[in-house]
């Protein structure tokens, strides 16, 4: 029981290590990684249940008490996100099994997939800012490999840019941590929060560091004007890999902004959070402009990832409990639905043989299930009431109204409408319109591809219809973020 919190990190790590041994036993690789993914869901749900009943869980690694050792903190936000990660990683893994190809499977695909999940889980659970950096690197190095895995020309070109941007942002991360350490003398998040909150005079250097962290996490999470690397690099790898990227990687950046801007840097919210709000509005705008402008289905979806970053961060910037609960709910919804949409678009590109809207059409005749699942996913993405996107957006808008950010609310509403337009265009031109397919499997079949998508859409429907059950969890998480003292007391045990 002491070591409960380590399991979400340990499970994928151990699986990844074991998968390094038998390279050519694809059957073994598939079975082991699927079993581990199922076990991960069980473990994270159990932790969620524990945190719900017993409050924030902490694990002092190596038995060293907090400000001195590394501590893993499972507060409600972290635990909700680890559960979502586990839930989204299983269907994408299953999708990869039927679409990624034998060549890639033989070259450690599953091992690196598990290491990616390890890094994401570690980033969500850690309570130490340097350990967060290390988990980021675990995640990023796995993502470097996955983005280039297979070595097609486009992947090689885009991975080069992706690696370059991320190495620069990681260097900024180290610099920001060094500044923060020089000013405060600690790396533990709870103690950082305590020390910064106890300052009597305002410290402009801390505002500078806060902005530096915003730049770092903005680069990782694709915030305007640091989003430029994302569209090309997320369309390069195969759809299963793009799905895990689109569902998880930018969200880790967003989670880090959540953490740093609610627990640590709350000393000068007039400047930092207003900046965050403006950047969030610009991100929404740029995301939907890109989504509307493109004709390539993958590009449309990728720009929608950027727009969602804006929605979530606007919720954080309001600093109200409603706004944060909305942002958390929307973040969870977005992980699930972006995973689903990337998989559906991947399946669509496989059956249509092209990713350009002009060359596809009439897919619904041969693939009605794919078509209607896509339609449902789009409705959920936009936030049509019974589905999952609704409550999050509603709460974010409510929080924005409490904070008096009416202009940004207007931008957000307009952006939501354009998200709907951009996605429904795929449905109208790709699934309706002139029929381009002669037989159902002219270019490829959807065998084994639809079940993972259906699973994710079911989860999304559960989030929407069962909001009554999920909302209290998001509200608890928001309460912890709103009152950092709860977090500090749980970690430092005073």
């Amino acid at each position, binding site marked *: 029981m*002491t*070591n409960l919190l*380590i399991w979400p990190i*340990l499970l994928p*790590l*151990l699986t990844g*290590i*074991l998968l*390094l*041994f038998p*390279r050519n036993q694809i059957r073994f690789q598939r079975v082991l990684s699927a079993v581990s993914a199922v076990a991960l869901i069980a473990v994270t749900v159990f932790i969620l249940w524990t945190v719900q009943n017993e409050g924030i869980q902490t*694990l*002092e*690694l*190596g*038995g060293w008490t907090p400000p001195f050792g590394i501590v893993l903190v499972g507060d409600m936000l972290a635990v909700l996100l680890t559960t979502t990660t586990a839930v989204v990683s299983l269907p994408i893994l299953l999708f990869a099994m039927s679409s990624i190809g034998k060549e890639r499977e033989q070259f450690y695909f599953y091992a690196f997939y598990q290491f990616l999940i390890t890094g994401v889980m570690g980033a969500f659970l850690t309570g130490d800012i340097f350990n967060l950096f290390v988990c980021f690197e675990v995640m990023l190095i796995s993502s470097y490999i996955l983005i280039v895995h297979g070595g097609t020309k486009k992947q090689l070109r885009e991975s080069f840019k992706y690696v370059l941007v991320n190495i620069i942002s990681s260097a900024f991360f180290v610099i920001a941590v060094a500044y923060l350490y020089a000013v405060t003398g600690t790396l533990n998040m709870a103690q950082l929060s305590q020390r910064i909150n106890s300052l009597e005079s305002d410290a402009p250097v801390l505002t500078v560091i806060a902005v530096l962290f915003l730049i770092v996490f903005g680069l990782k999470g694709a915030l305007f004007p640091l989003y430029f690397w994302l569209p090309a690099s997320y369309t390069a790898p195969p759809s299963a890999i793009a799905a895990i990227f689109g569902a998880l990687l930018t969200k880790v950046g967003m989670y880090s902004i959540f953490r740093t801007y609610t627990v640590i840097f709350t000393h000068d919210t007039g400047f930092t959070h207003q900046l965050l709000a403006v950047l969030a509005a610009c991100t929404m705008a740029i995301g939907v402009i890109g989504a509307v402008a493109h004709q390539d289905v993958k590009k449309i979806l990728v720009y929608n990832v950027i727009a969602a970053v804006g929605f979530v961060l606007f919720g954080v910037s309001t600093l109200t409990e409603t706004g944060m609960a909305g942002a958390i709910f929307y973040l969870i919804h977005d992980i699930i639905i972006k995973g689903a949409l990337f998989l559906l678009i991947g399946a669509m590109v496989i059956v249509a043989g092209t990713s350009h809207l002009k060359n596809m059409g009439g897919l619904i005749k041969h693939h009605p299930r794919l078509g209607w699942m896509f339609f449902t996913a789009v409705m959920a993405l936009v936030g049509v009431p019974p589905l999952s996107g609704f409550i999050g957006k509603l709460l974010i808008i409510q929080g924005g109204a409490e904070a008096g950010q009416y202009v940004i609310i207007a931008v957000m509403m307009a952006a939501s409408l354009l998200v709907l337009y951009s996605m429904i265009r795929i449905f109208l031109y790709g699934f309706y319109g002139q029929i381009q397919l002669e037989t159902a499997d002219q270019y490829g079949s959807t065998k084994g591809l639809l079940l993972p998508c259906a699973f994710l859409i079911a989860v999304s429907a559960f989030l929407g219809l069962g909001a009554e059950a999920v909302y209290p969890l998001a509200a608890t998480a928001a309460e912890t973020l709103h009152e950092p003292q709860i977090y500090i007391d749980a970690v430092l045990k005073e």
Partner: protein
Amino acid sequence: MKSNDVILQTVTNIVLFIILMFSVFIFFNGHHEPGGGFIGGLMTSSALVLLLLAYDLETVKRVLPVDFKHVTAAGLLVAVGTGMGSFFFDAPFLSQTYGYRHFPVLGELELATALIFDIGVYLVVVGITLTIIQTIGEDR
């Protein structure tokens, strides 16, 4: 094309063992003096790189018939295993302990479980370095 490398190969045969021994020394010294798994592993790999320079890839593979990717994986397993060892004592993950034991020749020695973790690091470093060098070298 085979040039005559007698001097290089003879010197390597002797120097190799000096480097290997020094790397082991550095590795065991890590707890109280500068050194440890990382630098020890790098030094061991540098000894093997010298072997690669003096002989060719096939010879080294014959002398050391191990897949270095498996060495890396084994090292990771050892490192994670030491962390998981604390599960049996109901201690937090990665807890370490130490004790003093008397050995016949060496006298009283301090034994720490951190050393096992270091063995993991050592294996990972050796495995990674040689995987990189062999993979690049094989392309020619």
